[in-house]
């Protein structure tokens, strides 16, 4: 739990201007706390894996969208579903190719249990991208690699959704 608390704290810091990049292993029980720290923002939660080539092609576009809309209240968080034993590999890939990509990994439980925190009907397809509202609710699920234009359009729509302000 100590590492989990650290992750939440670091996530919170990263949106106050500190360039903290976070990778930490969390369990399904801990994931709601991580997401709860992001309340008040519109969150892109990207479910990915190091073995998923389309996922890795999509991440640069996700980062670009976050950079463009950060000031409007958009944040990006990855959820890597790699086996917990591969956490070091997740971090190696992230550091080497996407150092600005904040992500969490699995500390335990299966991938389905993790993603079910936001989507009990997840069908184990990656990449899967969720738009979470400022209240933490799941607004939309998108599957497959998306274009930067599509990601921008979706994010802008939800940033402007008065029902979730």
């Amino acid at each position: 739990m100590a590492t989990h608390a650290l992750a939440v704290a670091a996530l919170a810091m990263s949106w106050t201007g500190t360039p903290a990049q976070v990778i930490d292993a969390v369990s399904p029980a801990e994931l709601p706390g991580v997401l709860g720290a992001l309340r008040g923002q519109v969150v892109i939660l990207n479910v990915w894996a190091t073995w998923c080539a389309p996922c890795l092609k999509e991440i640069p576009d996700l980062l670009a969208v976050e950079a463009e809309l950060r000031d409007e209240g958009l944040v990006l968080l990855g959820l890597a579903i790699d086996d917990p034993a591969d956490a070091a590999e997740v971090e190696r890939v992230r550091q080497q190719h996407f150092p600005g990509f904040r992500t969490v990994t699995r500390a335990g439980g299966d991938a389905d249990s993790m993603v079910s925190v936001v989507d009990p009907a997840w069908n184990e397809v990656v990449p899967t991208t969720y738009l979470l509202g400022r209240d933490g609710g799941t607004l939309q699920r998108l599957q497959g690699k998306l274009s930067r234009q599509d990601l921008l359009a979706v994010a802008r729509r939800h940033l402007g959704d008065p029902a979730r302000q």
Partner: protein
Amino acid sequence: MSRITASAVLALLTLVPGLADAAAGPVNVSPAGHKAMAPEIAVAPDGTIFVLWLERTTRGEQIAAAGAASAEGHTHQAEADIWLARSVDGGASFSAPGRVNARDGAVWGFPVSKPRIGVSASGTVHVFFPGNAVEPRTGKPIVLPMASRSRDGGRTFDPPHVLGAVPESDNSHLVSGLANAECFGTMTLDERGGAFAYWIDTRDMTTEQPNGKVFSAVSTDDGATWSRDFEVLPADTCPCCQLTATTAAGRIYLGSRRVSPAGDRDSVVAISSDRGRSFQPRTAWGGAPWRIEGCPLKATALAVDGAAVYAAAFDGGATPPGARVSRSLDGGRSFQPALPLHPAAAVSDAPVLAVSNGVLIAAWHAKAGDGPRQVYVSRSLDRGGAFSPPARVTAGDDSGGYPVLAVRGQGVQLAWQQGDTIVSRHLAVDDPLFGLAPAPAP
């Protein structure tokens, strides 16, 4: 049966642990202390039940010493072991497991890319798996298809045959840190000592053409020797959707997902009538087109009963998406629209099929209501025209999933992953679990 004899049988059932339970409920196959996943099952002609599974390991030596991931960061490195247990008492109990692969971490595997097992008419146990190796020219890791057999009832296995050639291409920049990947495969056996292996192959993958080809190798002497590998399907196969295959009446049926030019990933069935030398044009099953640029990781399950060919898959293009089954009554030339197996579930996936005594049995995992996913079964008494209501097999709070089936007696032997444990039970075609009334066709 006399009263005395009946009493003696009852006493015997009481005295022999697990025997009475075998008829009533599931039996643990993998022992405590094992973190098991991805079961497969086969039943030998003498009734012996074989269940194998995967366990991840960090002991792999060869891959750890090989090259790093690709420039794109994509990494497919994984080390696992195959464990095998057998039951000679009808599934009442299972032996202590033995490891199939001799070298630590020799297997590249996941629940969606798992080894296959079959038992030939001679009783030879065949295991086909994606094996970790090192590409000699570059020193990079490569995944190659391997087959190993046991002629002593699964107690020991011969060193594996490597069935796929080591390509000259270095595709580590495209598909992974691997030089190439020859994986997501399957194997089927015929009654004449034939073993037919298929896998998805990245050797001809390019940036412009990111899909896989299907290659094959064939043994006609019960796995003693194997042919050189050869291409059977062109470069339009979903590279992450594991292949399936079955044989019936001298034909081989191969299930895959074909990627259309528009990006649809449709389940298709290919049929060979010449022991795998060639395949007829693939026929689409009865599901909806599913367009996605991602890793669906969805296989196409098959079962054959005479002229009836059944295909089941996750139908991502359907409304709602989920596990569906489609039938062909003309030997696989055309398929009827797919029917949902579990329309009320929030999600249903990983369907498998078997036909026992003319009864089509389906198993899958699904989430219906609160809690984690569980394993469900259904049956059709009219060759796939209608199915009984979904019946939950699993119990408890642990997630249950990835079921597999093998025909045994007047029913099927079912195995699945329950938490970190592999569990098995028999299910008769007339088991009360199937309910009384078939579900109406939608």
